[in-house]
């Protein structure tokens, strides 16, 4: 078993009457990319702030690298890299100066710092923008600068709090590839997001949060196995008799169907060849159909089934 890097035990954080974290526990192991997934307001950033001792908490215990984390645990902080949700850089300094500053907070040796700064610049691909001020950079480049400032000192634990918010797809892919590369180089990563595709693509283990509680935890496959749905089949059909729909619903491993006048949605739970069996019924009754889709469950389905609501807010 790999060594525990972050251990959160029964964390409770209240903002007055509001319970932001409700007996929240986590155990993150070395070398993982751990995803904290949840809608806005679920407590992801509060967890990160408590983890970094930026916020005090009402109850519980936090250990990082096997030692208790406090605001004065500078030796622990020395090994953590933080990439905040907001781009936290000096507007007055250039790209190179910003990275050098944040690297300098950890690395005192000027030669080593210069080398690390150069490596961070190369890592995020900002070589052509070294003398630019942040205000001259696009949103995607700014996010890359934000990441470079957080990882330049080569931390053992990297915490990324929604680093891809408001980033174009090209920059987002580059950022995700970068995070995977950092993990391959040995860093443990904690990644918070409300973009389930990113978490699904990147993270080796995921905790889903809602209203300050952990509602599920595991690998993406483990999470998907927690729910009944294993496959959702969608078929475009312009006319479908109720008796045919009933015959489909009676097929093995099918637990629900829905028809909206143009599209039949069939929810399957386990089993193989569900799609073939459904299409066979339609052919028997000479029902003409258009496009056919078969989708595996997503983390949104997991969230939906556990909480009864969609993970992604409208407009996200």
């Amino acid at each position, binding site marked *: 078993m790999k060594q525990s890097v972050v251990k959160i035990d029964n964390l409770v954080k209240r*903002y007055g009457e*509001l319970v*932001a974290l409700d007996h929240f526990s986590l155990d993150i192991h070395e070398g993982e990319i751990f995803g904290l997934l949840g809608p*806005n*307001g*679920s*407590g*992801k*950033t*509060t967890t990160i*702030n408590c983890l*970094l001792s*930026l*916020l*005090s908490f009402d109850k519980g215990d936090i250990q990082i690298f096997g030692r208790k984390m406090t*605001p*004065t645990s*500078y*030796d622990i*902080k*020395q090994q*953590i890299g*933080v990439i*905040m949700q*907001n*781009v*936290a*850089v*000096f*507007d*007055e*300094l250039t790209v190179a*100066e910003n990275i*050098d*500053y*944040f690297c*300098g*907070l*950890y690395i005192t040796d000027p030669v080593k710092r210069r080398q690390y700064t150069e490596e961070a610049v190369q890592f995020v691909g900002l070589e052509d923008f070294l003398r630019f001020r942040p205000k001259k950079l696009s949103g995607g480049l700014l996010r890359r600068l934000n990441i470079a*400032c957080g990882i330049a000192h080569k931390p053992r634990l990297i915490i990324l709090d929604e680093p891809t918010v408001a980033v174009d797809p090209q920059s987002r892919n580059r950022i995700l590839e970068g995070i995977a590369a950092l993990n391959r180089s040995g860093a443990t990563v904690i990644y918070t997001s409300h973009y389930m595709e990113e978490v699904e693509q990147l993270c080796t283990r995921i905790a889903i949060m809602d209203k300050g509680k952990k509602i599920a935890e595991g690998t993406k496959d483990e999470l998907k196995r927690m729910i009944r749905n294993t496959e959702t089949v969608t078929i475009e059909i312009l006319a479908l008799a109720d008796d045919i729909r009933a015959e489909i619903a009676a097929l093995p491993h099918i637990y629900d169907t829905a028809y909206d006048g143009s599209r039949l949605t069939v929810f399957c739970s386990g089993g193989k060849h569900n799609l073939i069996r459904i299409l066979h019924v339609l052919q028997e009754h000479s029902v003409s159909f258009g496009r056919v889709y078969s989708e595996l469950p997503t983390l949104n389905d997991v969230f939906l089934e556990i909480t009864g609501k969609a993970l992604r807010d409208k407009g996200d």
Partner: protein
Amino acid sequence: MPVFKAYLKVLRRKSPSALIYLTVFLAIAVVMTLNDRPDAVYQDTRINVCIFDEDQTDASRAFCDLIAEKHKTVPLENDRDILLDALYYERVSFVLTVRKGFSERLAAGETDGLFESLHLHETYGTVLMTQFLDEFAGTVTAYEACGMPLPDAVSHAGSALTAETKVRTVTFDRNRSGILPQQTAFYFRYLPYILICVLMNTLSPVLLAMMRQDIRYRTNCSGLRQSACTAQIFAGCAVNFIAVWLFFMVAGCLFHGEIFRGYVWIAVLNSLIFSLFSTALAILTATFRPSPQIINIITQVVSLGMCFLCGIFVEQSMLGSGVLKAARFLPAYWYIRVNQMLDGTEPFRGSGIAAALCIEAGFAVVTALLAALIRHLRYNEAAYKTTLLPAKQ
């Protein structure tokens, strides 16, 4: 020292606005130094006048002598083109012709048709001249109406109109016998205004950048101790304040060369303490996290307010007692009191100077403590909670 270095880099980027103040102040100081004329006295305006006497009587000649006494007469040929040329090229400002029958008309008590004038435009001098002619005619006829003969009336009118108004200059009394040379006193007198402006325009914006919430949180996440971070920021402030203060002391030396002579060190110490107060004020302003525009407004209100209330722009002796009572609660008042004791406006008293310097230093300390208290209240977790609402997570 990453925070200290970052402070200096941000300061370098933020300094152009302060350089404007420095340049303007130095330019004014240079101009004032170059234009300093100890023998300068008040005198009436004299204009170039060309006079033609067509009457040629005793009265008209007396009048022409009067004009020659008050103004500079320029002899020209009585040719319209020549006169117009002279007016155009400003060799003369006024061409006056005393018309024939001047004496007779005056004797008859008439004031119209005595003169004929030629001038191109309504300058200050020509208006003054026209006014003088009216006054002359009015005064002579008034004397005549009292039964005075014409020659005597003209003579008396001349005496009355040439009497100079006594002007007493009280703002810059050059006969003061203070221990501070007058030029040096003048330089130090205006320093509070520029010190507040420059320090507020450099320190506050840099501190705003350094203490930006997101950057502070990120810095707090690092291995750098909070005490070390605060110490480095204060080191940056200290370098900033000393650099600005030294700049003005060196500039003073260059212009007046007497900064470090005799008792001038008291004025230097006075300015140092006031710089400390200005620094504390800039830190206090930054703790409220205002926008750059608001910093500019605060700077102008505080600096100009102190200058007008405490006797920087207008001497304390010319201010009302109510204003002075209110000004006692401002450090610039005590700064000026020290300056006045040094330049001879007030009697020199060692105890008075020491007390004023201590009060001034007290203002600096109280302002610094206030800044520290507000910083503590604003930056504790309570403040963090209010800015980090759960909805934003």
